[in-house]
């Protein structure tokens, strides 16, 4: 953390959804700089635009105006192949609904991105097993998703997100479908991985359990950045939340 390099930079991003004749302003000019290796939480109430911002950063959707830079590359300039490559190698996605591919085993889910990246089958299987062990479900490698609990599925998803050693892990409400303890375990796992591997974790959430582990919290309200707090300032506002309740 000697020098500050921005892995993600978002400038003046707006997003308008057209619903028939009505325009929905989901994002109203977001500016954001995210440094490499940090654990970032994007916090905000439901409907505030977290998922929309997440999709912009992940190259899953295009902003109406403004730019998103990953590693100082404007992702609007990328063609379909480069975007696929970016999704495959640079970014790992984690979803609220886990999204383990139903017809594949845990191991096959983890190896798929490596196959896409051109890795040989044996190497991919070796690495897949290592990753499954890293997230603590090495013994479940041959299980299909429906044989796994929610927490276990999310662990498979985390292992899969790490498959090609991405620079960024994007997680949209990763604990949204998990109970309290399982959610906490997944958060701890993400935090540990971010520290051990220097991965930048960006997580959209309204789960306050995330606050403890975040290096930075971006509060979003109604499509705008409300405030950005670093770890040190955070304890104060958590204190405030505590006293308010």
């Amino acid at each position: 953390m000697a020098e500050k390099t921005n892995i993600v930079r978002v400038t003046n991003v707006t997003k308008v959804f057209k619903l028939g004749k009505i325009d929905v302003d989901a994002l109203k000019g977001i500016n954001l700089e995210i440094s490499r290796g940090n654990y970032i939480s994007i916090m905000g109430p439901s409907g505030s635009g977290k998922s929309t911002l997440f999709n912009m950063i992940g190259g899953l959707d295009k902003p109406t105006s403004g730019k998103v830079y990953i590693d100082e590359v404007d992702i609007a300039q990328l063609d379909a192949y480069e975007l696929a490559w970016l999704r495959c190698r640079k970014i790992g996605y984690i979803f609220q609904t886990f999204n383990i591919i139903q017809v594949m085993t845990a191991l096959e889910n983890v190896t798929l991105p490596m196959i896409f990246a051109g890795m040989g089958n044996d190497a991919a299987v070796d690495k897949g097993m290592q990753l499954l062990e890293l997230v603590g479900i090495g013994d479940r490698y041959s299980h299909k998703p429906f044989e796994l609990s929610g927490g276990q599925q999310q662990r498979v998803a985390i292992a899969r997100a790490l498959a090609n050693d991405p620079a960024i892990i994007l997680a949209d409400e990763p604990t949204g479908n998990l109970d309290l303890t399982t959610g906490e375990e997944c958060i701890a796992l993400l935090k540990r991985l971010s520290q051990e591997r220097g991965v930048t974790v960006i997580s959209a959430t309204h789960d306050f359990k995330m606050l403890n582990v975040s290096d930075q919290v971006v509060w979003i309200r109604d499509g705008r950045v409300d405030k950005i707090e670093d770890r040190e300032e955070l304890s104060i506002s958590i204190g405030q939340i505590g006293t308010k309740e």
Partner: protein
Amino acid sequence: MTQKTILSEMPNGTGRVQRQVVLPFLKSVEISFQSIKVRFFRSLITTMSLVLAVSFLSFINVSNDIANGMLATHDPDLRQSLIRSGYDIGAQDISVGSSAKQRWIVILSLLVCVVGIVNAQLMAVTERFREIGTMKCLGALDRFILRLFVLEAGMQGLAGAGIGALAGALFSLINAWLHFGTAAVRSISIANLLISIGIATGVGCLLSLLGVFYPALVAARMQPVEAMRVEH
């Protein structure tokens, strides 16, 4: 342009060639096969109309082969029994073809079958939005998805059409045996029988591929953001 040079200097991606995402052909065959196996019941329903239509086609063709075999024996009894069972054979005819009405019914049944396949495959695509979106988030290109669907349909087509063609031929042989006796069955030319079964299988495969073409395009064009959809 400068943007692209920066990207190519990113770790792991020193050259353009290395920055391609790939899905080896054998791996796609493996994934498609597994997908059919796991969703066996679904695949069965998709293939059912194909099996029926192809077996009908095969039945008609093999029945004609049998009739021609019977005529080729120059046995007046067999000829008489053919005429009695409704074949329109003139005094000089030495072979029968399929009648216009037969052809019509076969074509109609094949058409209905294609529509059924398109319908079933479109439903399958809609059901699998999350899987397709997730694959795209993992780096799949449009053509990977297209290939997976086409391969699945090809395998389903081959299996379904093969079974249908054999069933239709068998049914036709049993039918001939019941109506005309063993002489009729023995007189059939094996080569013609095999050709009829082959044609029916081939037509079935083509129909299966034809039926999946549009649904596969829909699937391939699906956006990765679909994977994020939380509501049903």
